[in-house]
């Protein structure tokens, strides 16, 4: 550790070597950036290396978990009472809704039977704790404490009680990475629940805002419209709530509207999410799980989930108790979200009815 920088001549040769080294490393880094950006065949290397990095993510998740646990423990009696009352109210409300939905479900099943709609599997999900949250302006990701061991695969949709959260982009045996809707590189094809107008929602890098650019001025869309996944593109199952239009303003060219969308899912809160396993494998465990999770979800989402899975809701499944919310779903959405359900229903139905050709692609696509 020389305390003196040394004579200038010695430094000069060091300078040249240093500059050469700098150039070499810069070239290497730029090559890597280009390879990663263009080709994407670094992704394999990356997936392997991610395994090494996982312990770090876990450690980084600890403080958050600790804070959550402490705030849980510190909940005062009044808070708990209030929460309890609210939950009980919710439960009652949801039960009432369910009761109504069951009649609709029977109706729907009968009508679908008439239409000869194809049977689809039940809702199959994995409940996964969130291990780490990464909400950067340029990166909106989650790390889930569930991986390929639990059946999670790249491309599967991730939802919470409110609606769609994002999709799985990387999986290791123990963990999975979720690209959130709000990531600037994320886009979801959606449809307006009211009338089926198709749009694409983009992430903004903010966890409370999504964007719909380039809405034609003529399209029938207004503030307060609920957007649900349209299922086009085959990545997301149709029917999950994505968000609500919060504002519409003309863009710079004045030829289009730009919409701001409030996400339906709680992207920056919550510690557990559901991963939709698209495989229609009616495991006994999975059905039991369905029974436990569905009450936890609020009615609109529960209903919407079912829409996704059961675009062609199964006539047979209507008999079983857990599956009953599923067929109920398509009518449920207009019912719960637009009070004037009867006129809205045929409209909302229309895009869903168009779906089945696209829908079979959905389960296979994520496995690529």
């Amino acid at each position, binding site marked *: 550790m020389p305390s*003196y920088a040394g004579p200038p001549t010695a430094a000069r040769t060091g300078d040249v070597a240093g500059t050469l080294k*700098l150039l070499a*490393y*810069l070239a290497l880094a730029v090559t890597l*950036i280009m*390879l*990663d950006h263009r080709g994407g065949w*670094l992704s394999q290397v990356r997936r392997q290396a*991610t395994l090494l990095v996982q312990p770090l993510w876990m450690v980084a998740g600890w403080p958050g978990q600790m804070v959550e646990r402490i705030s849980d423990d510190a909940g005062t009696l009044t808070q708990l009472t209030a929460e309890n009352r609210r939950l009980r109210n919710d439960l009652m409300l949801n039960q009432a809704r369910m009761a109504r939905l069951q009649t609709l479900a029977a109706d729907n099943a009968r009508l679908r039977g008439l239409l000869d709609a194809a049977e689809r599997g039940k809702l199959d999900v994995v409940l996964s704790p969130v291990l780490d949250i990464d909400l950067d302006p*340029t990166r909106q990701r989650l790390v889930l404490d569930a991986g390929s061991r639990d059946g999670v695969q790249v491309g599967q949709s991730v939802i919470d009680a409110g609606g769609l959260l994002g999709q799985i982009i990387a999986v290791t045996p123990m963990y999975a990475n979720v690209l959130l809707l709000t990531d600037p590189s994320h886009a979801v094809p959606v449809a307006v629940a009211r009338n089926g107008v198709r749009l694409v929602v983009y992430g903004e890098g903010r966890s409370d805002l999504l964007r719909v650019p380039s809405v034609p001025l003529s399209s029938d869309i207004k503030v307060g419209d609920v957007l649900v996944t349209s299922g086009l593109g085959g990545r997301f199952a149709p029917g999950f709530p994505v968000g609500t239009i919060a504002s519409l303003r003309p863009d710079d060219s004045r030829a289009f509207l730009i919409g701001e969308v409030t996400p339906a899912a709680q992207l920056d809160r919550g510690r557990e999410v559901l991963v939709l396993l698209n495989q229609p494998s009616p495991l006994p465990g999975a059905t039991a799980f369905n029974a436990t999770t569905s009450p936890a979800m609020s009615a609109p989402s529960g209903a919407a989930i079912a829409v996704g899975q059961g675009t062609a809701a199964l006539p047979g499944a209507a008999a079983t108790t857990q599956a009953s919310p599923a067929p109920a779903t398509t009518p449920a959405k207009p019912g719960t979200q637009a009070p004037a359900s009867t006129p809205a229903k045929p409209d909302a139905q229309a895009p869903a009815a168009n779906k089945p050709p696209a829908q079979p692609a959905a389960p296979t696509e994520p496995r690529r």
Partner: protein
Amino acid sequence: MTRVRPQWVLPLSLVVALILGLLPLPPTLQPLRPYWLALVLAYWVIEDPDHIGLGVAFLIGLAGDLVYGGLFGEQALRLVVMAYILQRFRARLRFFPMSQQALAIGGLLLNDRIVTAAIHIAVGEPTMPASSWLAPLAGMLLWPLLFVGLDSLRLGRWRGR
């Protein structure tokens, strides 16, 4: 180099820097998150140039890219640039008073922001929001703390600057 120094301080400080960069922060503080990895690396480039050079900076940058999941090579490039500048001015930096040193580090972090923005524009990645330009300020304010802290860990005593 006569004193025996704890060898674990260097790797540990880097790992801690990686984790600090990962810790979830409330959204309001998010843009202020300093570039911990650069700060810690800067310390080691200044204080232990025999072991920490451009190569190590490059490798640490790759590790950072893996952990944070950005463009592979981006942080490597940023840290190499930073390490190079630090090496150039190391002799002067070491004898700066702490406040001046912090200013210099702030300047380096600002430069790092510019490099980042340039990379993002060059590859067409989304650019950082305006508020992220405050992060160098946070880094600058943290530098004296970090420097004194790491120094005391490395030397086993307070240097008393």
